[in-house]
């Protein structure tokens, strides 16, 4: 068993969250040979009798989890985000359709994963699971929020998918502030009236960085940690749309299907205001260091700043 990585990566929060859930005897953890990576390994160490090793067989894992859920257990099943996608139809037909409370965690999501290359960089997971009825979709930004949201999944009815990241990020929360987080309620990190940057996952820290750069230019940004992609916090979106008049989304995910799509779908129908999307522009990644890759793919504070300026120009031209 490898030593746990130092705090700061959302996957570590997932691992700690599982440990906090262990006192509920209904909680069962499923692994597909990646427990050391997803951090379910700590639960396994403490509670081997409630950990089910499935081996490298993700399709089987999803339906074993469904069978456990139908028998009164609360299963948490994890592997890499990209490998959960292999079992998409199992999640759709075997878990979500009967509405079983199976909680799936896909770690190592996004370009942020880095040097493993494009085969490991899931950039479509949020989109494909968001398209499934009844699913709750989470993408926390740091370890404390991931821990807290994992714990709160226990009482969240129906299936869920949570994406965690491999690498450490700046901590946005501490143990106390994370406790206030609620599934389905976006968290306001910075308040500003000129534009709202709605972000998730590893892009939250980049959005904060962008807001600081823009502050020097006299642009006041709101920054939102929209850790729940589905159900989307429509009350908060309405407030932001009315207050700021334009929105920028930022995600380490394809611009097709994820947070940007979710926000745009809502604005198109309800508040037709300018929206700019920062995300992966319909392409695959490649191997590289996280920071250089994120910059190359347009997933950094500079890109967010450009999107904000463009969005405010559009608003002013209206």
């Amino acid at each position, binding site marked *: 068993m490898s030593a746990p990585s130092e705090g700061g990566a959302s996957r570590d929060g997932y691992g700690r969250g599982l440990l906090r859930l262990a006192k509920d005897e209904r909680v069962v953890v499923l692994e597909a040979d990646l427990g050391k990576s997803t951090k379910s390994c700590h639960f396994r160490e403490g509670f081997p009798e409630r950990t089910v090793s499935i081996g490298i067989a993700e*399709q089987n894992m999803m339906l*074993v989890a469904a069978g456990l859920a139908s028998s009164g257990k609360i299963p948490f099943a994890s592997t890499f985000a990209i490998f959960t996608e292999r079992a998409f139809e199992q999640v759709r037909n075997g878990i979500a359709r009967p509405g079983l409370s199976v909680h799936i965690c896909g770690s190592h999501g996004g370009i942020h994963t880095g040097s493993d290359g494009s085969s490991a960089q899931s950039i479509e997971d949020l989109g494909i699971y968001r398209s499934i009825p009844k699913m709750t979709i989470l993408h926390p930004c740091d370890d404390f929020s991931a821990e807290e949201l994992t714990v709160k999944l226990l009482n969240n009815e129906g299936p869920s998918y949570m994406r965690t990241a491999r690498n450490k990020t700046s901590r946005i929360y501490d143990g106390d502030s994370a406790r206030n987080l609620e599934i389905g309620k976006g968290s306001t990190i910075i308040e500003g009236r000129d534009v709202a940057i709605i972000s998730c996952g590893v892009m939250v820290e980049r959005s904060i960085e962008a807001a600081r750069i823009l502050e020097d230019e006299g642009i006041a940004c709101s920054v939102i940690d929209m850790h729940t992609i589905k159900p989307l916090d429509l009350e908060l979106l309405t407030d932001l749309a009315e207050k700021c008049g334009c929105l920028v989304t930022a995600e380490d995910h394809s611009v097709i299907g994820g947070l940007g799509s979710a926000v745009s779908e809502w604005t198109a129908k309800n508040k037709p205001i300018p929206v700019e999307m920062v995300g992966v522009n319909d392409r695959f990644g490649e191997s590289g260091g996280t920071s250089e890759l994120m910059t190359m793919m347009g997933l950094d504070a500079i890109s967010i700043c450009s999107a904000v300026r463009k969005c405010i120009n559009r608003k002013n031209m209206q």
Partner: protein
Amino acid sequence: MGDVASQSHDELTEMARLCRIDILRMTHEAKSGHPGGSLSAIDAMVALYGTDFRFDTSNPDWPDRDRFIMSKGHASPAMYSLLHQMGVLDVEDILGFRTLGSACQGHVDMVWTKGVDFSAGSLGMGLSFGLGCSIAAKMDSSERRIWVMLGDGETQEGQVWEAAMASSYHNASNLRVIVDRNRIQNDDFMAVQMEVGDIGEKFASFGWNVLEVDGHNISELIEAINWANQNESAPSAIIAHTIKGKGVSFMEDNPSFHGKAPNDEELKIALEELS
């Protein structure tokens, strides 16, 4: 399943005949559905519910019931006919098969139908689900047994063998499979489409106990089911050799009745043959 379990061999044979009539009537009424694989599977299902299978018709959701997981979910008419004959579904339910709002959905669905333990429709998933139920039962120290009905064509799905491997690894001794070995799949005979070979041998190679039986002989089926219940050294697979469309001459061994309902004339002939 107290009510069925107390019935004699002759009564079970009669029940299977009534189920066959239901299968034909509901697919005819719906003008769609899968009679062939329902008619091949029904004898094994009647036999199972005729053993000491734990099921309470007045409380189908009883948590400690044995589970029956119809992985070949397109053979839903077989499941509905059985639930009808046991009094869980009424005749209006089964004749509403495949219509809007019906308790009898096109493929078996645990949300829509009391007494159904699994939402199927996509092949290859039921054994994995059964393994999950099996592990949960062991965690709860419950004696409930988990039965999974697989189609033979379905074993072309790789997930079936992922589950077979994992069942053995997890010593799922409370898990049993019945394979409806009718040798026909959707498009044609398996020999034409994709012959899988000796299914029993494959399960055995994963560490399962295996028994091959005539899937239309109620006595043999009951013996096999009891054998599985008494042999809990490993999960058990009963390979039930069957005839697709069994009981209706023009449907027997005929791939075209995999997913085609009988028309008016065909229903008339079929019901005469079953009378």
